[in-house]
C-alpha cells in the first residue's frame, strides 16, 4: 500500500519547484491540442473522450493517494453516478445534460459520504479491501436485480438534451467532448488549489502523522472523510461523462477491474499527480485500444510490463519523467545564459 503511495508528495503543489511557467505553458498546449482533436484527428475523438472521463475518475483515486491510501473500489462511485444518470433519463425522458451530471454527482457524493463514514476508520490494506467489498456488493445488486437494473446488459442512457435542445449524435458528441475538456481543466485546477490549501494540506498529513493531527485538535477520520468525499465526487463526474459518452451503463462500470485500472493509471501517470492522472489515462486508453487491435491477447501483458518498468525505473510515473526533463531543460538554459554572460 505504502509502496504505491510513498512517491506522492504533499509539498509538490504548495510550492511547485522550478519551471512552473514552462509547466503551465506545456499544460496549455496540451489542452489546446486536445481541443483540436475533433478537427485534426476526428477518429480519435471518442477514444480521447473516454480517456478524459476516466482521467477525472483517476483524479479521485489520486486525491486518496496523497493521503497514503489506496482504494480498490472507487469504481463504485463511477458506477453509482452513471446509473443515477441512467435512472434519471428513464424516469424523466429528455432531461438536460446538466441534470444528468448533477444527479450523478449527487449520487456519488451521497454514497461517498455513507461508505466514507465507515471506511475512514481503517487504513492501508483494510481501507483498500473494504472499498473493494462495497463496490462488489453494488456490482452484485446490479447483476441480480435485473428487473430494475437490467442485469448484465445494463440500462440504456438515451441522449439528454443540451440546454433544452435535442442534438444530433455528432453535435452531442462535440458537446460532451468539450464539456469533458472543460471539466478536466476546472476540476484539475480546483484539485491543485485544494491540495495547496490548508484543508488539502491537512488532509495529506494523514499519510505522515495522525497522532500530531489528533493533537492539533482535529479528527483524522473527519479529515480523511473530507478528501474521500472529494474523491467520490470526482469519480462520479468521470462516471457520468463516461455513461453519456457511451450511451449505456452496465455492471462493468463497478467491476473490480475498473477500480484496479484507476489505481493502475494513477501510478502510471505519477501517483499523486493531477496532470499525471490525465496523461496516464490518455496513454492507457491509447495503448489499450491499439495494443488490443495489433497485439491480440497479449496487450494486458504489455501494459503490465510497462507498469513494472515504470515502478522500477520511474517511480514517480510519467509525470516524474516529464518533470525531470523540464528541470534538466531549465538547468541547461540557465547554464547557457550563465555562459553567455
Amino acid at each position: 500500500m505504502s509502496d504505491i503511495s510513498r512517491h506522492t508528495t504533499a509539498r509538490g503543489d504548495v510550492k511547485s519547484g522550478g519551471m512552473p511557467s514552462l509547466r503551465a505553458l506545456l499544460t496549455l498546449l496540451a489542452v489546446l491540442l486536445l481541443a483540436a482533436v475533433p478537427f485534426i484527428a476526428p477518429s480519435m475523438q471518442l477514444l480521447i473522450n473516454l480517456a478524459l472521463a476516466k482521467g477525472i475518475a483517476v483524479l479521485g483515486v489520486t486525491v486518496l493517494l496523497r493521503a497514503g491510501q489506496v482504494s480498490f473500489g472507487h469504481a463504485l462511485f463511477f458506477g453509482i453516478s452513471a446509473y443515477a444518470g441512467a435512472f434519471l433519463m428513464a424516469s424523466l425522458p429528455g432531461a438536460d445534460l446538466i441534470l444528468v451530471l448533477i444527479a450523478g454527482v449527487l449520487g456519488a457524493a451521497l454514497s461517498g459520504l455513507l461508505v466514507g463514514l465507515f471506511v475512514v476508520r481503517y487504513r492501508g490494506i483494510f481501507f483498500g479491501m473494504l472499498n473493494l467489498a462495497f463496490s462488489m456488493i453494488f456490482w452484485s445488486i446490479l447483476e441480480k436485480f435485473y428487473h430494475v437494473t437490467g442485469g448484465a446488459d445494463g440500462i440504456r442512457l438515451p441522449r439528454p438534451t443540451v440546454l433544452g435542445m435535442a442534438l444530433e449524435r455528432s453535435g452531442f458528441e462535440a458537446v460532451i467532448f468539450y464539456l469533458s475538456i472543460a471539466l478536466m481543466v476546472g476540476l484539475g485546477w480546483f484539485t491543485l488549489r485544494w491540495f495547496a490549501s490548508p484543508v488539502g494540506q491537512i488532509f495529506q498529513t494523514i499519510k505522515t502523522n495522525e497522532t500530531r493531527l489528533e493533537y492539533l485538535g482535529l479528527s483524522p477520520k473527519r479529515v480523511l472523510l473530507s478528501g474521500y468525499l472529494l474523491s467520490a465526487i470526482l469519480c462520479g463526474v468521470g462516471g457520468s461523462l463516461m455513461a453519456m459518452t457511451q450511451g449505456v451503463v452496465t455492471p462493468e462500470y463497478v467491476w473490480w477491474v475498473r477500480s484496479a485500472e484507476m489505481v493502475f493509471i494513477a501510478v502510471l501517470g505519477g501517483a499523486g499527480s493531477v496532470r499525471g492522472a490525465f496523461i496516464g489515462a490518455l496513454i492507457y486508453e491509447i495503448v489499450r485500444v491499439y495494443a488490443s487491435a495489433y497485439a491480440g491477447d497479449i496487450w494486458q501483458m504489455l501494459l503490465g510490463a510497462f507498469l513494472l518498468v515504470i515502478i522500477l525505473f520511474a517511480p514517480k510515473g510519467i509525470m516524474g519523467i516529464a518533470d525531470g526533463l523540464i528541470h534538466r531543460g531549465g538547468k541547461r538554459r540557465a547554464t547557457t545564459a550563465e555562459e553567455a554572460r
Partner: protein
Amino acid sequence: MTATNKAGTAKPPLLETRELMIKFGGVTAANNVSMQIEAGRNLAIIGPNGAGKTTFLNICTGWIKPRSGKVFLEGEDITPLPPRKIVRRGVARAFQIPQLFTEHTALENLLISAAAREGLRNPLQNLHNIRQRDEMMHLLDLVHCTDVADRVVVELSEGQRKLIDIAVALALKPRLLLMDEPTSGVASSQKHEVMEILVGALAEAGVTSVFVEHDMGIVARHADEVAVWNAGNVQLRGTPQEILEHPDVIRDVIGEEVA
C-alpha cells in the same frame, strides 16, 4: 493552594487529577494520583524509568483513559474526552519523539497548526498565504529556527525537530503545554541552550508547562517546581532545591540517573 479571583470565589486549578488509577498487566502506572497544577509555573516531573511519568501525560491529554479517577481542566471534567477535544480546550502536547509532518517543511508544520487552530476551510487559499504566516515566523524566531523554516522536517537535527515540535504545540496558543523529555536526543552541550530558548518562548507566550525530564541540571535551572514520581504516584513535590537535595531523591532518582 487554591487561588481566589476578584469576586472572592475559589478559582479551580488549571489542571487537577483526582485518584487516577491505571494498570498495564501487572504494572501499576498510575496509583491513586491526585495533584494540582497551578497556572503560570513550569513544573518538572522526575523519576526512574517506568515510574508512570509519560502515562500521567497520556491520561491528562486523553490518549489513554484511567481505570478510575478523573482529570479536571479549570474545574471541567475532561476525563472522557478524546485528545483533540482536550487540545481545543487549551492543552497542547510535545513528545519525546517529535510528532511532526515529515514531508512538510518546518514552517509548513507551524502553518498547518495555525490552520487547525483557526479552522481554516477555504479550499482555494494557499497554505503559505494564510494571515497567520507572520505569527508563525515569529514563533520560529522564538525557538531560533528561522534559518530552517523552509527545510523539510526529515532534514533537521533532533534538537531542531524537538524545538519545532514544541513550536507546533505553541502555535495552538495553549494555556498548558505538556512536554515529554524536551531535551532528550539533544546533544548534551546544547541541552541548556535548547531549554533556555524553550523557557523564554513559554514565558513570552504566557504558557504554563509541565515537562518530564531526566537531566537534573535542566530541572535545577529551569523548573519552578518539581514533582517526583515513583511506582505510579507523586512521592514528593517542592522547589528544585528542596527536591534535588532530598535524600530519597538522591538515592532513588539521581543515583539511578548517574548509574
